[in-house]
Structure formats: structure tokens, C-alpha cells
């Protein structure tokens, strides 16, 4: 069965004065109606170009994009403009009209579609209620927070009753809490209005939070695609694994608060391994030497100036004397040791 969006063998090459950049190569995707489809990749992977090919803001160099079985490449300029009214888009930087107030911004796509002003305003008021900003109708975008601006942008995108909503890094300029509320709003819109949503992001947490399907783009190629659950538990490619490990997001935060709980009233130290200290099993030897258990609260490697450094947070036994000798033991082995009482990242 043909999907809502069918991308077949899509390639996009940018020709500049002195170079040819192959932004996308041979991408094929099938997005079903009602899906929340994530497209994830590192910055520069070509995902923003890909999403612009879905409404032909960028014309693909090769391949086709079909929306509900209609090939965008076969449409005239005017037909394409009409088609775009069914494919709304929201952006990382919101892209609201700064000189127009909230309600006029939401009316804008209706104005373009030639809908009478009175009807447009009524529709805009309904939408403001959906996104929870009724009292901001007369405000200007510069008076709103980032999250509120994105809500206005979402209301504007929904105004003309689109079938598809494209989100280009829509939460990347927002803090984690606001990101959450925007994602919940998108989820609600998908559920209540059955709008197919395509989400472009570099954050795995976003994909995990709301997407049903995901495509991983790396260096202009489609690396992996499928159900989020499958890819998350069995990533096949290096790109997928990297994104999953880096996009800790939510899980990290809950772990941290859990750690804080454990660290209360305990003597904790943070140790950092230099590159030569990792040859010796320091922690194991220390446990054997002192005959006391220690608790590893966190172990991680961090990239510090291009070198992977091991980092651990240990909870030491309660005995003050043993604590001191353990610290000097660690210091003797060339590790960086510091006491931590609150959680230090």
C-alpha cells in the first residue's frame, strides 16, 4: 500500500562555484498516514535538506517525492503552492512574522489561502485554545518565550488543516522542559487530528519520546530505518549506536536524581583516570587491600580535548580512617581524586 509520503531514490546535489556537494544520495522512505516519523542524524548529515525536499522547498536532483500518490515533481508552480497548504512546517527558530501579533500570525496561512478574515479569526481563536495561548492573542512574538513562540508556530501550521506536519529541529532551541511540553502537544495533535508528523532532530531522546518510526541519516545516506523500538534495542550500524549512546537525555536525568539520593550523607569521591592509570585494576585492588566494599555510583567516559577519559563516582565506607587511606591509595596510583557532596557532572 502506498503511504502518505513516498520518497523514492531521492538525491540532492548542490552545485557551488568551486564544488559539488552531494547532500543526499539515493534515499527511499515510506511514511504511512498517522505515523510520527523521526528523521535523525548528526548536524550536516543532510536531514534538513531531506525535509525540504518533502515539500519541494528544495527540488531533488534525482528521484521522486509522492504525497498521497501525487508526484510533486509533476506539479506546476501553482499546483505545488496549493499542495503545500496540505504540508505544514515548523522550524527551529519559529520563523514568525515579528511585526504581526499572535492572532495575525496564525491567520497568515488562511489569508494566503484566501479565507475571509472573519472565518480566519474564528479558526485562529480555536487554535490558540488548542495550544493554550488564548490570553496572548494580541501579544507580539518578541514578547513571548521560545516555547510560546513554537506553540504559536504550531497553531499557525495547523490553521489550514494540513495532512502532514514537518518539524525541522522544532525543539532544538528549547530547554528540556519546554521540549517535553512541545512534544506532548505534537503527540496530542497526531492523536486527535490524525495528522502525519515528520520530525527532524539530532536528539535521540526526541525520537524515543514520541516517534513510532525512525530513519537514521548519516552523511547523506539512509543508514537505517524501522520501528523505533527495534532500532533502539538492536541498532545494526555504527551511526545508530552512536546516536543511541549520545542521546541519553531523559534516562540520564532520572539516573542523576537517583544518584543524588544515594549520595546523601555518604562520603563520595569522583576519580578521573589518566591514560596510563587504566592498566592497573585500581578499584578491584583497593577493595582487596582494604577488605571493604565500595559502591560505584557512576562510571563514564568523557571526551576531553579529543582524549577519552574514564570517570567514576565512588561511595566510600563510613569509617573516616579508611576513607582517608583509600583516598591516598588512589592518589598514589596517579588518579585525580576529589570529594563530591552534591552531584557534580
Amino acid at each position, binding site marked *: 500500500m502506498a503511504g502518505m509520503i513516498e520518497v523514492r531514490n531521492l538525491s540532492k546535489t548542490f552545485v557551488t562555484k568551486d564544488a559539488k556537494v552531494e547532500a543526499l544520495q539515493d534515499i527511499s522512505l515510506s511514511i504511512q498516514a498517522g505515523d510520527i516519523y523521526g528523521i535523525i542524524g548528526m548536524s550536516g548529515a543532510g536531514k534538513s535538506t531531506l525535509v525540504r525536499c518533502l515539500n519541494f522547498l528544495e527540488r531533488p536532483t534525482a528521484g521522486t517525492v509522492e504525497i498521497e500518490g501525487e508526484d510533486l515533481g509533476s506539479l506546476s508552480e501553482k499546483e505545488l503552492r496549493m499542495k503545500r497548504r496540505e504540508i505544514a512546517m515548523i522550524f527551529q527558530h519559529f520563523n514568525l512574522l515579528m*511585526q504581526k501579533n499572535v492572532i495575525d500570525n496564525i491567520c497568515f496561512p488562511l489569508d494566503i489561502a484566501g479565507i475571509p478574515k472573519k472565518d480566519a479569526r474564528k479558526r485562529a481563536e480555536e487554535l490558540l485554545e488548542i495550544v493554550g495561548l488564548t490570553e496572548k492573542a494580541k501579544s507580539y512574538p*518578541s514578547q513571548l518565550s521560545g516555547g510560546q513562540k513554537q506553540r504559536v508556530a504550531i497553531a499557525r501550521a495547523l490553521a*489550514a488543516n494540513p495532512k502532514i506536519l514537518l518539524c525541522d529541529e522544532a525543539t532544538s532551541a528549547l530547554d528540556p522542559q519546554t521540549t517535553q511540553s512541545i512534544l506532548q502537544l505534537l503527540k496530542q495533535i497526531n492523536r486527535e487530528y490524525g495528522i502525519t508528523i515528520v520530525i527532524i532532530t539530532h536528539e535521540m531522546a526526541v525520537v524515543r519520546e514520541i516517534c513510532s518510526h525512525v530513519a537514521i541519516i548519516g552523511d547523506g545516506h539512509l543508514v537505517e530505518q524501522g520501528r523505533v523500538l527495534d532500532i533502539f534495542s538492536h541498532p545494526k550500524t555504527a551511526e545508530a549506536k552512536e546516536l543511541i549512546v549520545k542521546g541519553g537525555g531523559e534516562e540520564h536525568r532520572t539516573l542523576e536524581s537517583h544518584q543524588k539520593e544515594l549520595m546523601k550523607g555518604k562520603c563520595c569521591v569522583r576519580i578521573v583516570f589518566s591514560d596510563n592509570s587504566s592498566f592497573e585494576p585500581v578499584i578491584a585492588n583497593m577493595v582487596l587491600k582494604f577488605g571493604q566494599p565500595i559502591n560505584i555510583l557512576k562510571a563514564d567516559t568523557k571526551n576531553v580535548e579529543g582524549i577519552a577519559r574514564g570517570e567514576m563516582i565512588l561511595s566510600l565506607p563510613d569509617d573516616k580512617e579508611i576513607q582517608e587511606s583509600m583516598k591516598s591509595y588512589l592518589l598514589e596510583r596517579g588518579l585525580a581524586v576529589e570529594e563530591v557532596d552534591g552531584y557534580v557532572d
Partner: protein
Amino acid sequence: MWTNELTVMMAEGVRDTLLMTLVSTLFGYIIGLPMGIALTVTDQTGIKPNALIYKILDVIANIVRSIPFLILLILVMPLTKAIVGKSYGSVATIVPLTIAAAPFIGRMIESSLKEVDHGVIEAAQSMGAGTFTIIWKVLLVEARTSILVGVTIAIGTILGYSAMAGVVGGGGLGDIAMRYGYYRYETLIMIVAVVLLVILVQIFQTLGMRLSVKLDRRKR
């Protein structure tokens, strides 16, 4: 000694200068606004790139702007005579003033419109807006403040040009300053004319800036 006739002459000077400046600014925008829009839209990074149209307008703007106003004034005298019927006086000066102002205004409109965030234009395109809609409802609306600042600058510049036209009998305060100050060594009259010119520029500058700040919805 200052006489009543002199006061009347000064008042007429102010009236003529205002007439020349404001009418030329109006005509300047009638030509310059579409020109600036065309320069923005047809540019390589514009919404309807067209290298030929851009190049033609670009060259015209550069040629006219590189001719010193005083030379232009003399150069277009036949045209002025054809349009107005005579080549001196304040009404006649409107012709060269408009010709000099239009490309200058076109360039200012171009720079104002190019300040508009590309993301907003892209958003409008994603909604299915056509070129005309984008020009009318996005570019001109979003650049409103900057365009108004441009109008203020244009009026100041054209007022200066109008005074220069006094050299060839252009009418207005510049003409008075030339005739009395330069040819008849009546320094007082010249100073009064210059002071009046300064006051006029001040008034336009203040009004223009106030209006543009008032209409800007970005910072509140």
C-alpha cells in the same frame, strides 16, 4: 537690515524647499520602491532569481549614483524642459531630484528588504505563498521599520540636493543662500537660509525616527 520682504522671501523659500523635497521623495519612491523590490527578488539569493534583470537594474543604479548631482542637474536639463516647460525654478528641479533619488532609494529599499530573516520567507513559501504575496505580506511588512528609517535618510539627502540646485536657479532656500550669500555677500541672509535648512532636516529626522520606533513591534 531685516525687512518684511525678507521674511516673506524666507517663508517662500521654506515652502519651495519643502515642495521640492517632498514631491521628489514621493516620485523617488514611486520609481525606487519597485526597483528595490526587483533588486531583492531577482538577486541570486532572492525568491525569483533572474540574473539579467538584476544586472540591468544594478548597472542603472550604479551609473546614476556615480554622477555628481550638480552634473546630473545640467545633464537632464533638456528632459526637464520637455516635461516642465522650463529648466529653472523649484518645480523644474523636481525632475533631476527624482532621477537622482530613485536609484538611491532603490538601493535603500534593497538593503532593508534583504535584512528580512530568510526563515520567515521560507515559512511563507512552505504555506504556499506566491512571490507577490511574499513581497507584499512578508518582505514589506517585516522591513517596515528599516524602510521608514530609509525614508528619513532619503528626505534628508534630497533636501540637501535641493539646496544644491540653487546654483543653477533651482529655487528654495538653497537658491536664496546662493543668490544673497554668494553673489551679493549678504552673509546674514545666507546664514538664516542655512539655519532654516538645518531646522528642516532636524524636524524630518526626529519625526521619521519617532515614527519608525513607534511602529516597530520587535522590542517592547
